């Protein structure tokens, strides 16, 4: 994706300002937007779906593609130590 600040109209400005042959580019830029694209074919068998592709790469499900949002490996002694350290600071600031 191009820099988010660049609007589609800007793109067509630059490309359409040039002579004719570049005109195709400008229309391509227009369609390049975040629009759902037309599929090249109307229909396809189940084997060609993303679901089948993912199942083939995993253990027959799509479970492996999503993971839990927390990291239990990280809840180590490190954090407890860090927490105790910070806690001292909090308590200290309270006493003041």
């Amino acid at each position, binding site marked *: 994706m191009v820099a988010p600040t660049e609007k589609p109209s800007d793109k067509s400005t630059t490309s359409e300002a040039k002579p004719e042959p570049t005109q195709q580019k400008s229309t391509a830029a227009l369609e390049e937007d975040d629009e759902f694209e037309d599929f090249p074919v*109307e229909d396809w068998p189940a084997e060609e779906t993303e679901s089948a592709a993912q199942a083939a790469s995993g253990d027959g499900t799509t479970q492996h593609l*999503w993971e839990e949002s927390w990291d239990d490996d990280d809840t180590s002694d490190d954090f407890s130590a860090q927490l105790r350290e910070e806690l001292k600071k909090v308590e200290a600031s309270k006493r003041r």
Partner: protein
Amino acid sequence: MDGLIRQFRVAYAATNGEQLAETLSPDVQTHSAKLRAIWGRGDLRSTTADLNFLFHQDQARLSIRLSKEETSGWYAIYTAYWKAIGEILAAEGLRHDAQSSWAKVYDAWKDLTLLTVRGYTNHEFENWTIPCLYVTGRYLRLYAMRADAERALNNDNTAVDELQDDFDPQAEENKCLEDCARHLNRIFQICASDRAPLEESRKWGVYYAVNLLFKTYFKLNSESLSKNVLRVISAGRSDIPPIDKFPKSQQTTFKYYEGVLAFLEENYVEAEKHLEMAWLMCHKNAQRNLELILTYLIPCRLLTTHTLPSAQLLGPFPRLQKLFMPLAHAIKKSDLRAFDIALRDGEDEFIKRRVYLTLERGRDIVLRNLLRKVFIAGGFEPAKDGAAPVRRTRIPITEFTAAVQISSGEAIDSDEVECLMANMIYKNLMKGYIAHERGTVVLSKSGAFPGTKQDRRRYTYVIVISRAINITTSLSGSLAEVLVPNDYKKYDGWCMGGISHG
């Protein structure tokens, strides 16, 4: 013209709608030579004469059975098609004798579209020919967008000096597309309102038309109109065949838009359902579409199930990696500061994709993960004799305050933390209550952080055991030793004290 009409006859004889629609394709990239041949010398009179001959005199015309009505319908369509081709070739710079504009192309193609629609209302066209409606509708939208872009460009160049009073830039900007939406809606109506028995009904064109409408309305930023369409077809009063009877391209596109619409209404459970369906059904090679689906499915999942995309899922999509990986990382590490930075860095893109507000709510998940870390670091209560150890569930607010300070890198007031925690409890991201006078949070013993399987498993186990065995207190248990902080005794004292919870 000869070749074109011969192609028409072949498709018609085979009742092949796709093939028939192909005769109306204006695609210059793939059919440049063919379109030039159709345009010929660009002489209207000889073209009319040709068409007259082909539709009214040519013996070969009898190879297919066209009613008088149908004949006049198709005759008009191919005349309009020929005119449109002339404009298209000129606009693409492929004619030396003339120049044109996309505005003119749009008008010419609109005439063709109207005539095609009329074929169904006035000229007895059968339902298998509806791909002709698709092709006219699809290109009408394309030309409308090009015409609008072209006008915007010209306006820029001629720098508007006089400012009019009631000038609506938005409406002006999309003038052709707005007009196009009306014609597409007409196509939708003549498909949806067909009363013929299902096997010969134009209802089979409904989803194609709806998808075109969705694309158009999204571009015009009028999602509410999309909702109206959705209401018409979901009401069931139109007897539209179930969606799984339609080609996968139409199902996928429809489910994507239905999902995004629910997403924009913050109905994430519904959105997830539709988007996941779109994702699973999408063609595996349609990278761009898969990417678009995931752009919304990922924020959905974050809120509904608190799950994140794995590196494997994002592997093929560098753009999504750039968008979501820093956030996902921050969430996993329960790092508030990193989360805020990631959100700020991606802000422009997130806003453009309209996922910013949804992702912003992800901060709750970071916080929840952080609070859970405090809970886990809190270790275990002195275990009852022989019973499995129970996690410490009464935790001083100061511990949470300290954790938030570590994570956000900023000093924070403990009242503010209390407020954050109250929110967590309200949102059901954490179970328990705040004992304000004691400066303590009392967490639920059964799954203080809903959704974490590990806790759930451990707790069910603990509850069963502790109910079965009678209680005496002593300190033991190997599990406890792993996680209990050295100063647990400090809290132990009041844990024995009086707060009860049920």
